[in-house]
């Protein structure tokens, strides 16, 4: 099989645009499948790549792409210490039309083999198949802040990257542990890493041109920093695991007049709910939380740190351990997916897209989902064939009005912020 070499078109353009005598540039490549596929970079990769590392050298080819292979091999061998691994050579040039082109060679102990070089295209082409549903060029400018990069927040980040959102701020102070893996978009390769950085790499795998900034901080202890990020975003998505952070983010959402989506799973992910806050127009997080509407729908405790943060210090260890009951990833997925849909609706507002009819349907600000007939849904009838009664695996919108007695957004405030 002819080896395949993928290279970022943007990096080749950058190489070609460099002035001066640029002959050889040291890069890096990652090989897969017995050195038959390579991902080559002329500069530091934008994310933590996978694969087996090997040397890569890039050069601007002479006219017509002619290369003296013997001379090249000597030149390249003198630059790297291959340890027997292949060396990927990129020959950057321009085609007859003036567009960048790239040839690739793979050098092994056996000699030089020509490879099939392919570009990872520019942003405009990366999402070309989305045309017609989403105006990705518009969404590329949208800025999203996601707080909480666990089992809920991480798939949301990925789906929004797939939809072409261009700017992300990811906030979480947690690191990826073994117990997270089965419900998280990241795997064992990312164990021990900050969730923000691991998810950033996943986002960049979907959209290499996304701008992703990360904040490894506790929202409740870094209010000013987080509020600055919220003020600069188009949409705030809250997938954190404690109410204190949600209350703080609720205040920031109101202060900065930012639409915010909150999602959570209840115990063992028997179900969950999603809330959209349109500041000063609908209910805020506190209006809903303090209304009693979600009483008896206790939030899922997925790890000990989460339980310790909300329980009094004297609660015994055994009790804490019994409270940590998690659901399956497939139980979290519908909640995350609903948040993605609502996020796309909000971000597409004012743009002619296929999301406008969804916007008409999502009239409610609060949605409830049941995965199983247990916990808060234990008394629900079986799904059967009726559509007229509550059932598992369906979304239900609940009408909730803004609470004028709410001590966060209600009538005690003399006037709403003007931001």
């Amino acid at each position, binding site marked *: 099989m002819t080896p395949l070499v993928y290279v970022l078109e943007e990096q080749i353009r950058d190489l070609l645009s460099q002035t001066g005598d640029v002959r050889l540039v040291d890069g890096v490549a990652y090989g897969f499948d017995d050195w038959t596929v390579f991902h080559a970079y002329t500069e530091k990769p934008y994310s933590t790549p996978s694969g087996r590392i090997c040397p890569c050298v890039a050069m601007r080819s002479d006219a017509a792409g002619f290369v003296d292979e013997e001379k090249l091999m000597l030149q390249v061998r003198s630059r790297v210490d291959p340890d027997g691994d292949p060396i990927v050579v990129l020959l950057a040039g321009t085609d007859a039309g003036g567009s960048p082109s790239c040839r690739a060679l793979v050098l092994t102990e056996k000699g030089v083999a020509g490879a099939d070089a392919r570009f990872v295209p520019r942003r405009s082409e990366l999402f070309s198949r989305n045309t017609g549903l989403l105006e990705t060029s518009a969404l590329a400018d949208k800025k999203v802040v996601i707080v909480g990069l666990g089992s809920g927040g991480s798939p949301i980040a990925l789906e929004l990257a797939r939809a072409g959102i261009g700017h992300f701020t990811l906030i979480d102070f947690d690191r990826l542990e073994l117990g997270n893996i089965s419900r998280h978009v990241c795997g064992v390769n990312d164990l021990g890493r900050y969730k923000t950085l691991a998810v950033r790499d996943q986002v960049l795998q979907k959209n290499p041109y996304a701008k992703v900034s990360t904040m490894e901080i506790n929202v*409740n202890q870094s*209010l*000013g920093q987080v509020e600055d990020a919220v003020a600069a975003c188009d949409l705030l998505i809250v997938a954190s695991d*404690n*109410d*204190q952070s949600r*209350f*703080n983010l*609720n*205040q920031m959402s*109101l*202060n900065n007049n930012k639409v915010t989506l909150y999602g959570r799973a209840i115990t063992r992910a028997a179900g969950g709910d999603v809330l959209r806050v349109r500041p000063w127009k609908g209910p805020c997080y*506190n209006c809903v*939380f*303090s209304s009693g509407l979600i009483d008896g729908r*206790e939030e899922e405790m997925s790890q000990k740190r989460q339980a310790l*943060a*909300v*329980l*009094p*210090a*004297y*609660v015994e260890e055994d*009790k804490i351990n019994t*409270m940590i009951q998690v659901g399956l990833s497939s139980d979290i997925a519908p909640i995350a997916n609903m948040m993605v849909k609502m996020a796309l609706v909000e971000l597409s507002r004012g743009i002619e897209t296929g999301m406008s009819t969804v916007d008409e349907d999502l009239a409610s600000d609060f949605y409830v989902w049941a995965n199983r007939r247990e916990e808060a849904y234990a008394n629900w009838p079986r799904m059967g064939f009726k559509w007229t009664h509550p059932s598992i695996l369906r979304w239900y919108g609940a009408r909730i009005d803004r609470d004028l*007695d*709410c*001590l*966060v957004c209600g009538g*005690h*405030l*003399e006037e709403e*912020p003007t931001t």
Partner: protein
Amino acid sequence: MGWSSQQSARLHLEMGILSRYFPTFFLKDSIIPGHAVIEGTLRSNAGNEYLIRLRVPADLPNSVPIVEIVSPVLRDRFGHSLVDLGTSYPMHLLKPENGAVRICHYSASHWHPNITFFKVLLKIRAWIEAYEGHLDSGYAIDHYLPHMEA
């Protein structure tokens, strides 16, 4: 960074309620979030006075305020200092700091911003009655005050 305008409005609201129902309570060191405290005296039915300090959270009203009993030095019926008890489930006590007893009133899982300091002090007032009941009977405080569901 100082209080936000919303937090300033909330502090004003809180002090307005307290001035009506718990008029001995006043705000101290209110300029810097995280340092502000509200102090005042609660008097039990038996006429005993307790100096209470409520620490206003920097993220007011989004987290549970710490409430301490500054004086008198509290002892249980058997003469042990409540500070020495440390964290105590039967006595509704959290880990003490700086020699002051900290009362467990609301857990974080039950807290929301609609809870005012007035409601918190009502719970402290109830704790004081239960404490004095303990001194009389020897029953732990949770004999009088059931725990909120965790």
